[in-house]
Each structure stands twice: as structure tokens, then as C-alpha cells.
């Protein structure tokens, strides 16, 4: 066991899997000697050499497109995209090819790649360094989408992703990178993709969230003084809607929290599914606490944009009072 932050836990998972499986290679901008701009790949270049930890040209479509070819040939590339705001140029290769290759070729080719992408706001970064595009990739069939909220989960989920034979978009919440440490086993372990975690149990209301927002939710729960169950989805596709259903069947009230804009965000999908599954039990409409339908503002106002414990608290109150 070691006391690690999110950056360290991911680094550990990467190095253990690289040790174990020489099909795993890392590629991206500044992942080599520099160890990535967040230092997530720190030390890996020194340890595994320049053939397995590869600095690429500055081109996100190229990084993903090349990774697709590597994966089709049987390797397990782990491309890094430096910030979620630069995933856009790779959208087409991810959605038109990575997501489709297995079904297109009836399984003759698969694309076992894991693209790591720092995500979200709250770190005083410049424009396009603070967005939350997860819903975009959940809407694309053929991809899996993961977003851990803690070091322990990150290690187990990343190992699962690296061993998965389908393309995974692995979002790493920047705000959590160095926010706290927790005990992370040295030994390898996996957390299955598609399984949510009940962070804390409760009877009055269910909160569903993922990524950095989970921390804001915990704060809000503490402040509320209510018996609230918090579900961290961990994997966004496939989504563990059974866990959500089980909880809401019990509590009859639900709040969903995410940083991405409200409209078309995953909160909508979760709300719709809760309605489909818990219609008769539901005592209040599912409340969504999300980014507003505006551009994520530059950092002077970013905290006004992002869900915080006050806004989550308001939603808890609204749901309970309904």
C-alpha cells in the first residue's frame, strides 16, 4: 500500500501494465522526457525507453489515427491527448474509425486502445483547458468511457481499460490530480468497467455523479445533514444504471451532478432512464446540477460556472421539498 494521489496512481498502473505486457506503448505530445504536462507519465520514458514511450508530432488526429493502426496490428497503444479541449481534432478518427472497426469488419479487426484525456475545470487554466465533453463520446456507440474520481479507482479502472479489447476514452479529472491522496495497493487489481461505486449510503435521496464533481457532492452531503446515497458512476459507458435504479427505488429522489453543460449532458440520459425505470416510485423530478448552457468561462468566473456544494445543496433541497 502506498499513499498516492491520482497522478501517481495512474502512473503506477501504466508502469505495471507496461511491465506486464509489452504490447502496451504510450504515445503523445510531451509524454517522453517531459513526463507529460501533468507528469502522469513521469519516469516511464527513462524506464521503458523511447520505443515504448514516444513523443509524437503535435497532431491529435494523427495520434489517434496512428493508435488505431497500432491497435489493429495487435498492440495496446495508450495515446495521451494533452487536454480535453484538444480531443476535437481526433473526434473523427475516434468516432468514425476506432468505434466502428470491430462492427465494420465483423470482428476481423479490433481496436484495443485507451486514450487518456485530462478533463474538466477548476484549475485556473486557459481557454479550452477546462471542458467536459464526456457526453459526446458516450453518445458514440462502440466506445467505452471512463472517468475515475479517486486514486484507488483510477488505478483499477485504468488497468481494466488497458486490458479491454475495445477502445476506451479514459478521462482524468484535472481538479483531482493532486487534490488528495489515498491508500492504493502496490499490487495490481482491476475494477470492472461498467460498475458504479456507492460512495456512501443513505435513504432520503440519491446523488449520481462522476469525476471531480464527486468531491463537491460529498461536501454538499455533509452540509445537508440528510441521509443521502452517493453513486459515483466511474464508467459512463456502459453505464451502471442498475445501481442507480436500485438506489432511487429506495430513496425516490435523485440529483445528478456534472460539469458539462446541462443540455444534452449525461444528466439528461440518467434522468430519462430513472423515469423509465422508477416512474412509480419517484417523488420528485430528477434534479440536474450541471454546467450552464454557455461556454465554460475563462478562469475568473469558472467557479461560478461549475457545480459547487451550494448549488448541489439547493438541488437536494428542491428535490426533498418537492
Amino acid at each position, binding site marked *: 500500500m502506498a499513499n498516492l494521489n491520482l497522478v501517481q496512481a495512474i502512473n503506477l498502473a501504466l508502469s505495471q501494465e507496461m511491465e506486464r505486457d509489452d504490447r502496451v506503448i504510450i504515445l503523445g505530445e510531451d509524454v517522453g522526457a517531459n513526463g507529460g504536462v501533468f507528469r502522469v507519465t513521469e519516469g516511464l520514458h527513462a524506464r521503458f525507453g523511447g520505443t515504448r514511450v514516444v513523443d509524437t508530432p503535435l497532431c491529435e488526429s*494523427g495520434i489517434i489515427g*496512428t493508435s488505431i493502426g*497500432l491497435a489493429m496490428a495487435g498492440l495496446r497503444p495508450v495515446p495521451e491527448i494533452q487536454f480535453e479541449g484538444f480531443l476535437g481534432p481526433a473526434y473523427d478518427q475516434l468516432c468514425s474509425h476506432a468505434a466502428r472497426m470491430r462492427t465494420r469488419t465483423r470482428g476481423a479487426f479490433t481496436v484495443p486502445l485507451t486514450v487518456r484525456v485530462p478533463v474538466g475545470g477548476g484549475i485556473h487554466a486557459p481557454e479550452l483547458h477546462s471542458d467536459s465533453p464526456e457526453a459526446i463520446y458516450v453518445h458514440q456507440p462502440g466506445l467505452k468511457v471512463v472517468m475515475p474520481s479517486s486514486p484507488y479507482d483510477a488505478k483499477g479502472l485504468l488497468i481494466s481499460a488497458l486490458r479491454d479489447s*475495445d477502445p476506451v476514452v479514459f478521462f482524468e479529472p484535472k481538479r483531482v490530480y493532486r487534490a488528495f491522496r489515498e491508500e492504493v495497493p502496490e499490487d495490481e487489481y482491476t475494477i470492472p468497467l461498467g460498475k458504479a461505486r456507492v460512495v456512501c449510503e443513505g435513504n432520503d435521496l440519491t446523488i449520481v455523479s462522476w469525476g471531480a464533481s464527486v468531491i463537491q457532492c460529498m461536501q454538499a452531503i455533509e452540509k445537508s445533514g440528510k441521509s443521502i446515497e452517493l453513486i459515483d458512476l466511474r464508467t459512463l459507458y456502459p453505464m451502471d444504471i442498475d445501481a442507480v435504479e436500485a438506489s432511487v427505488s429506495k430513496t425516490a429522489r435523485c440529483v445528478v451532478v456534472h460539469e458539462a453543460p446541462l443540455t444534452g449532458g449525461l444528466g439528461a440520459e440518467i434522468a*430519462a432512464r430513472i423515469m*423509465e425505470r422508477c416512474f412509480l416510485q419517484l417523488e420528485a423530478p430528477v434534479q440536474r446540477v450541471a454546467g450552464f448552457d454557455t461556454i465554460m468561462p475563462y478562469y475568473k468566473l469558472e467557479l461560478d460556472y461549475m457545480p459547487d456544494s451550494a448549488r448541489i445543496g439547493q438541488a437536494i433541497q428542491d428535490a426533498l421539498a418537492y
Partner: protein
Amino acid sequence: MFGSAIGPLIMPITTAFKTEIERISILDEHGNFDESLGKDLIPNADLVRLYEAMSACRFLDEVAFKLQRSGRMGTYPQNMGQEAPSLGAAYVLTKNDWLVTCYRENCGLFWRGVPMESILMHWMGDERGNAIPRELHCTPIAIPIGTQMLHATGLAWASKYRSEPHIACTFFGDGATSEGDFHEACNFAANLEIPVIFFCQNNFWAISVPGKIQCSAPTLAQRGIAYGMPCIQIDGNDIFAVVYAVKKAAAYTRATSKPYFIEAVTYRLADHTTADDARRYRDQAEVDIWKQRDPLIRTRDLMKKRKLWNDSKESDLQERLGKEIAAAVARAEGIAAPDRTDFFNYMYSELPSDLIRQRETMHTHSLGQDPSQLPAGAAMPTATAH
């Protein structure tokens, strides 16, 4: 080499860079044959086989066209006139070298061993046409223009990573060279030293858009200069020039693990696809000139000159092809219809439970409704609202 950050600065006007690009033609449309380059390039027996392969591809093309016109196939992009480039490449390369193609490389794919019915099935709207055995080292037909070259870069990199001697050869049109992904693939391969042959089939048109809108430079070959790649321009309707260039490129690429750029000048004699009407945008006079430059004609004439071929061999060939291709069509059309839920089956290595539910209930329930979760009596046509 991109200058190092420490080199001296030299004054005032110096030459920073200098280059030139060769153009290769060995067997031209007038029957001229260059012995110096062409002599032992293609043994006679192979020449006959190559001609037969081109003829087969041409025949299939015509059959496919008729299938589309009679409603038995969807949109189909004819290959007519462009048989030589992919064929020459498939002929030179080994079976372990990747062919990463677009949709005008049928001839090379057939040479490699892809069954004709696979291509037909693809255009008949059936994914099973893409289930090509991995050991053929061919990727599926690429629909989004310009994207597949990056896959070639990754595939070849994997060979290099495993210290295997295999390279990739990727095909694309003049239009494709305008896409950003084309640039990223060339640049990736050049700078990370990945053994890819970038093979451009310049057929002067991208649907209705003329070549000069894709590239106003004197050649398309010079795209490669941007990456410091060796580049060559060839007569793409000349199977000898193709074989010459691919041999040269493959030797270089295999030896250095660096990419090579080939521009093959060719022409599509048919419409862009069966959905197109090229008379709207190009002159018949241009087409007529290129009909003279048909790769089949000049190859057949040379074979006749060399006494390898005659009219009766030709009619035997056509008869044999007629039968073979009819059989391929029968196989493509005869395959059992896919199950109506088939599109669920290859989504993931393991189907997520929600997709299993969607598949199972697709004809019986609304999408969001898990039958087991409906309140008693619900979803029965006669039930009343709660």
C-alpha cells in the same frame, strides 16, 4: 534533418534547400518500351498474369455497374482505368506487407487474395464483405476520404516495433491529399521513421472537383518534399512504371524504415460512382484521350508483340472471367440475409447488458422499457392507465 538549434547562421542569401523530382514512364500508350528500365522488371509469365488480373478487375467492374443499374447493388465506385497502380503494388509487395486502401484498389486486393464477393457484398450494404481474413493484411474499404493513411502509419509502426520487416503501402486519391489526416500521416511516418509507402492515385478529379483545386503545385509528388521524403512521379497506367517505383520504394522503406511518396498519374474512365454523372463537369474529349491511355490496351499490345498473347487467348480469358465472376456474384447474392439483430453482435468484445436488452426487446417493447420492470399489467394492449 530539421536544422539543429545550435548550427551556425550563414549570411546573407544562401541556399537552404534544393531538390528535384523524377518522372518515370516505361511502357507508354504508343507502345514505346524503355529497355534500360524495363528489361528484367516483369518476367513474361508474370506479365500475362498481371494482364489477366487487370482484365478480371475490369470485367467485375462492368458487372458491378450492371448490378447497380438493375437495383441489385447500391452505389458502386468503378475502378475502370485505374487497375495498374494497386496491382503493381500488390505484385511487388509480400503478403505480410499491409495494403491500406481506399475504394479504387480492387485489382490489387484481388491479387492479394480478397474474394471478389467480399467487395460485392460491401457495396451490397453488408458488413460481412469486410470480414477479410487478417492474414491477407488488407484493411477494409475506407469510406471517409483521407483517413486510412494514418492506420497504415500505425500498422507499419507495429511491424517496426516488433522488428518485423513488413511495411505498409497506403493508397489515396488526389482529393484525399487535401485532408489534414493525409498531412498528419505523412508527417508522422517521416519524423518517427515508419516504413510506409504513400501511394497517390492522381486521377485528376475528386468527384467533380478538378485536380488544381486540390493541388495547384506542378506535381502532387512534391507533397512529399514537405516531409523530406523521397518522391517520384510515374505514369500510373503503365504497369512497368508502377512495378519499378514500388520496388524502389519498398527497398528504400524496408532498408531505412522511412516513408516514400509515389504519385501515379492515372484517370478514372467511368463516373465517380454509379451515383455520379461525370458529363456534368468534364469533357468527353478528355475522356477519349485517356481511353487511348488505358493500361490494359498497352499491356495487351506488348504481350502480342512479344507473342505472349493473341485473340483466341483473349476470348478464352473473357469466357473464363465471365464464369468466375458470375459465380462470385452468385455467392455474394446467395449469402443468407443477416439476422435482423445482427448489428448488435459485433459492437463490443462482450455485449453490455443494456445492449442485450435492446436486442432482445427490439421488436416487442419501447426502447427504454425493460419488460421485467414494467408495473403489473402495463404494456399489455388492453391495460388501462394507472
